[in-house]
């Protein structure tokens, strides 16, 4: 019984690795391409430095993307290196984890359309709020 529990957990981990490794490697390869081919000015054109607009753009990008949360940390780190503001990167990471436009269909089938839309809509707005609050609070303590 106990052994089957360990085995079950191992099976779950193996499934998780099978699902996340190709996405993670693909994203890392893409970051390599983007870093080489796309100039920093391109990011500066999308993220204009506007305190209200930048986190919203970050949150929208994060909500479109899907996959294991750790992928978002890697991308977030690279965005920071490219001069994107912390608040936009935070909104991107939070919405990556909490908003799932890609899995919206599965979510609405399991939990109901209205619930899924409300959940994702509120999560998108909250991603912006959390990002702003995190930067404000870290500014107070840092």
């Amino acid at each position, binding site marked *: 019984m106990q052994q089957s529990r360990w085995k079950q957990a191992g099976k779950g981990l193996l499934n998780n690795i099978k699902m996340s490794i190709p996405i993670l490697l693909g994203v890392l390869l893409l970051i390599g391409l983007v870093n080489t*081919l796309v100039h920093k000015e391109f990011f500066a054109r999308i993220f204009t430095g506007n305190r209200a607009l930048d986190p919203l753009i970050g949150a929208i990008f994060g909500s479109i993307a899907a996959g294991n949360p750790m992928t978002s940390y890697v991308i977030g780190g690279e965005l920071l290196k490219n001069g994107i503001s912390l608040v936009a990167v935070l909104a991107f990471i939070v919405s990556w984890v909490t908003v799932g436009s890609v899995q919206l269909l599965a979510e609405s089938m399991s939990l109901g359309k209205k619930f899924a839309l409300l959940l994702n809509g509120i999560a998108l707005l909250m991603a912006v709020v959390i990002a702003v609050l995190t930067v404000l609070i870290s500014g107070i303590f840092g």
Partner: protein
Amino acid sequence: MKNVLMRIGANWLFMIAVVLLYFILGLWNFQAVIASLETFLGLLKRILPILVLVFALIYLSNLFLNPKVVSRYLGEGTKRRGGLSPSSPVFFPPAQYTFGILC
């Protein structure tokens, strides 16, 4: 054709598409491919130790968290409901895994 694509899975298709992108770029600008691969390897080296830790934590969460345990903390009659939400940090796997637990 559709069956083959379904069997490969969207995750692997994504990676294959990126590798193809490298091939196409290589025909046109080989130096850019080398530079991109260098960035890729640098990133991989940086996140590999973290990845091992993350997978160890996923194993532990698989070991101790299952739909039964979660429903014990979220179900009717529990004193502190909502403490374990799908977005809480103890859930590492992608969000779609959580729908099954909630239903």
